[in-house]
């Protein structure tokens, strides 16, 4: 018989070695997340997926499921913390959704919709961040980067290129690229790379494709991210 644990009162089966996030996703249960992606190694940095595991807080994307463990996710307190985390991400960058190509397909925005964020609440930093438009096919818009390192992982683990990295600390942390000039055009990034399309926000976007689907007709304009976690992708289910 399959091993199980309890998530918000629901029995969730899991296979040995699976994380709480993986088992929950396979069972069709959404746990809010941003830096987690089913195809990549867990990163555990955004903390949006924080759940209570037998009374202790931990990231669902890095903690392994264990037989009989009791996990709480959909509580008012945890969702309140998640909302605050998302609000901080908004004021830490420059997120002008009305002028963003990704709006409606952006997972940061979608997580904020899901959590009912009406205002970023905290004082905006308006940090000075560079835009890199040097690459012929890919735009790097650092104002919208949430430092989730999905592009870093995709370039390193799938494309085998190490195009991206994070440099600096605190409010000065930023996405850097692997070229002496510091320009995206001088890296080996190609538009067909996994790293060029994995960004959950509008920080890395394909040029000349921004508005092929009009604003208002995009995934999260009509679907809560809990029903459709990744734009263009059905929820990965267990057969």
């Amino acid at each position, binding site marked *: 018989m399959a091993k199980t644990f309890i998530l918000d009162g629901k029995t969730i089966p899991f296979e040995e070695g699976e994380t709480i996030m993986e088992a929950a996703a396979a069972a069709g249960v959404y746990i809010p997340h941003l830096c987690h992606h089913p195809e990549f190694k867990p990163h555990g940095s955004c903390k949006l997926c924080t759940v209570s595991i037998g009374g202790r807080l931990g990231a669902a994307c890095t903690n392994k499921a264990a037989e009989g463990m009791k996990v709480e996710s959909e509580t008012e307190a945890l969702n309140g913390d998640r909302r605050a985390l998302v609000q901080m991400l*908004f004021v830490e960058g*420059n*997120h*002008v*959704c*009305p*002028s*963003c190509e990704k*709006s*409606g397909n952006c997972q940061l*925005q979608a997580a*904020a*919709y899901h959590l*009912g964020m*009406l*205002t*970023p*609440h905290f*004082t*905006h930093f*308006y*940090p*000075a961040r560079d835009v890199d438009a040097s690459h012929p096919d890919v735009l790097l818009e650092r104002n919208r980067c949430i430092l989730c390192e999905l592009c870093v992982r995709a370039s390193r683990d799938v494309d085998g290129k190490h195009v991206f990295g994070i440099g600096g600390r605190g409010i000065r942390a930023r996405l850097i690229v692997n070229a002496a000039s510091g320009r995206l055009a001088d890296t080996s990034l190609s538009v067909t790379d996994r790293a060029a399309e994995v960004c959950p926000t509008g920080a890395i976007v394909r040029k000349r494709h921004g508005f092929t689907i009009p*604003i208002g007709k995009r995934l999260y*304009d*009509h679907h*809560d991210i809990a029903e459709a976690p990744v734009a263009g992708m059905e929820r990965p289910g267990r057969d």
Partner: protein
Amino acid sequence: MTEPKKLKVATCSLAGCFGCHMSLLDIDEKLFELVKVVEFDRSPITDIKHCGPCDIGIVEGGVCNAENVHVLKEFRKNCRVLVATGACAITGGIPAWRNNVDLWDCFQEVYHYGIGLENGQIPNDPELPLPFDKVHPIGEVVRVDHFLPGCPPPADAIWKFLTDLAAGREPKLEYEMLHYD
């Protein structure tokens, strides 16, 4: 039976584009229903210049100059409930794109170097309000009671919000009415 007292509503556009006001007008024939229950005080719609005591204040746009602050403070003082309406009032929005550009460079670009400009002059009339070096959301200047996001908020969202407030309910937006764009 006596007519129920109408709610007094004031509206203003600070550093915004009037898009939120357009969206308010976009509730179309519901405007007739709306004027049965609300009466407009200061608003670009009435052209009344100063607001008296009001039930609801609708503020579009962020704060980009000294005049914006005076208007906003007048609204806060007079309005029982203040609603930050639209992306600019809530986050600074598109005007806040200039927050990382030096104000002087901004002026030069707009009035001297802009495409098609010849002999441009930077306006310097004493009547013009003093611009700030940064644009701020209104919540950084006054206390805000409610936030109605969108660029602009859809007409139906404004309608839902106002009717909820008029009925004394906590305003609640359905998923599809909550937008930041």
